[in-house]
């Protein structure tokens, strides 16, 4: 017994020491190192997986080179925890010495990671989370995002429903920061009558009680924000309760290419607003969506499109400074030009490094081939060149 435990401990110590030495400092060769942080474990790993596959596709399209230099991509798992995300970021910065950190799905993780990265003088290229603090007074020269500011998407839905003259809207979101932000953004443009504003428990699975309340209020329309598993559950139950035909359902971040396979026809007719859609017709998107469908058997989600663009943005910056990775000011200037073929088409950056872009109304319609999953398609543009509402709080001017 004694012998085996001593050798076990010795083995562990040796392994630890070996891994300490084995991680060599950055090699002398010119290489671009990118750290990509997302969620790869747990149920939300679905999103992270889509992002990773899109990043890989982008790198393949670029011939595994960023700005002409060889690229090394390191993926990290934040486990949906801000402190783990921060630790992963620090590992990428200090151990792997990456030139760019990218990714991040969740706002609270982004708020912990972004200052760490920019504080270390490294670029943070966000590809999903868009908390208003980073769009306002915490904006930074080294922080860019290829997604959107959180409020913009519900603002677009609010505008659409306002223009459509809808009244008596029933609003529902989970009771946490993002949920409240979505409703705030919605109400910024929707000025009609709201019959009830309901906040559900985060992670709630059963919505029967809320659905009964909803029916009793008899609204003319329903607006919800229920991301991830919550959306899948709500949609199934909404459909099962027979409310689909009764009350038109509008949402943001509730139905997307990742959740449709789980709900199928329960999503038909669903209206959402988004800055991008898989059927958007521009050169980059047609190539991206086409190749993605061929390789993975289904269209990519917007998380993927944003991550793809993130790689393209980095590529354009490195190309502009001709591979001189220490010219951070030059890369900032290049990124500000947004001079790359984005999957959303041409766009420009606001002073806070958030995109100024169009927002569209999407509808979930039946798939082309019989028996295939429904797809989301653009119906019309709601906003053209829409700016976020926090740019004025950002002190950067250029």
């Amino acid at each position: 017994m004694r012998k085996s435990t001593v050798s076990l401990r010795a083995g562990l110590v040796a392994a630890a020491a070996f891994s300490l030495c084995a991680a060599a400092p950055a090699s002398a060769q010119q290489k671009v190192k990118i750290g990509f942080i997302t969620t790869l474990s747990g149920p939300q790993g679905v999103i992270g997986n889509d992002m990773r596959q899109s990043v890989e596709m982008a790198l393949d399209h670029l011939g595994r080179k960023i700005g002409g230099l060889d690229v090394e991509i390191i993926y990290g798992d934040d486990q949906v925890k801000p402190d783990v995300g921060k630790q992963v970021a620090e590992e990428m910065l200090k151990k792997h010495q990456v030139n760019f950190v990218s990714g991040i799905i969740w706002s609270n993780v982004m708020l912990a990671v972004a200052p760490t990265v920019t504080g270390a003088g490294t670029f943070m290229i966000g590809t999903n989370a868009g908390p208003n603090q980073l769009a306002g007074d915490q904006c930074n020269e080294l922080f860019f995002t290829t997604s959107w500011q959180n409020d913009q998407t519900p603002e677009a839905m609010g505008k659409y429903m306002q223009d459509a003259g809808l009244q008596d809207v029933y609003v529902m979101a989970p009771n946490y920061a993002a949920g409240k932000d979505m409703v705030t953004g919605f109400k910024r443009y929707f000025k009609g009558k709201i019959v009830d504003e309901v906040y559900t428990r985060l992670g709630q699975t059963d919505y029967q009680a809320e659905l009964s309340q909803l029916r009793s209020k008899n609204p003319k329309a329903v607006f919800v924000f229920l991301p991830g598993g919550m959306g899948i559950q709500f949609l199934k139950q909404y459909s099962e309760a027979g409310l689909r035909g009764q009350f038109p359902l509008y949402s943001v971040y509730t139905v997307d290419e990742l959740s449709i396979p789980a709900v199928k026809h329960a999503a038909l007719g669903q209206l959402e607003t988004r800055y991008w859609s898989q059927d958007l017709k521009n050169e980059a998107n047609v190539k991206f969506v086409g190749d993605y469908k061929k390789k993975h058997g289904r269209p990519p989600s917007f998380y993927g499109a944003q991550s793809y663009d993130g790689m393209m943005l980095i590529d354009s910056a490195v190309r502009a400074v001709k591979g001189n990775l220490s010219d951070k000011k030059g890369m900032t200037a290049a990124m500000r030009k947004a001079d790359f073929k984005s999957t959303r088409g041409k766009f420009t950056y606001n002073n806070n490094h958030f995109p100024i872009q169009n927002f569209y109304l999407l509808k979930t319609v039946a798939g082309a081939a019989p028996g295939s999953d429904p797809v989301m398609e653009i119906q019309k543009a709601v906003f053209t060149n829409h700016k976020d509402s926090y740019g004025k709080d950002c002190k950067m001017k250029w």
Partner: protein
Amino acid sequence: MITTRNWILVAILLLLGAVPAAAAYFEQPFYLDLLRRVMIFAIAAVSLNLILGYGGMVSFGHAAYLGIGGYAVGILAHHGIHSGWLQWGLAIGASALVALAIGAISVRTSGIYFIMITLAFTQMLYYLGISIEEYGGDDGMRVPVRSQFSGLVDLNDGTQFYFLVLGILAASLFLVHRLVNSRFGMVLQAIRSNEARTRAIGFSPYPYRLATFVISGAMCGLAGALLVNHTAYLTPEFMNWTRSGELMFMVILGGIATSAGPLLGAAVLLLLEDVLQGWSLLPREAVRDHWQLYLGIFLVLVVLFARRGLAGLLPGKNE
């Protein structure tokens, strides 16, 4: 009394003390941060071991004190008060008060009921934290300025912060060691062993349990203050029941009612997570994405074959 086990523990602490120099020599500053995080959770695990291991009170709500300590620092910093003395003092004091309140009710129960009631309280605090918008709600709050100690220690210096944490860890281990081996500690362990008999000799369990609960909560509150300084970020998620579960696992994995247990448990659990995700010996995808599978297998194997936890594997007599 210095046993073999205690010498090993001292040796581990000395090894930890050598890390900053080693990290600088090998140019791997990341490991300083990683081990600092491990030590902070070790302090929390030491505090939990006091009530769980020695006191026999299985608290599923211990992460609440990490949160309270953290919020004490965060809220004061938010309002412009950066004095470490005030912040950490409040962290310890508030945690002790809350532990007193929760303990007064919970300590009367035992067994599964104690587990559930501590769980209930922590969930309530968690939902409370989510709904308070002023301090970030669910998004959490950045704490960009670290606690200041009027020039004595600069927390912005990674090495100084590291040694401060190491010092607090050593102090906690020493405090628990003295407490457990004192008359007070003897009664506590007797209560855990056989409550009826302890009562029969004239000791009332309630005040002993409550006092231990409060001390444990206060110590964990200090760990919370350290954690917030380390991550420079604060979120109610620190108080989630799954975090409490992680603390419990560290203590049980390490070996309950042992001196080295909490530190070993925290180190192995957190380092294993890091190692499994970065292991370059196996194809990345297979290991990294499903690292929880290997962690699960590891936990089951430890329970089945290492009956007294990891500390039980160390040479020396079982305490």
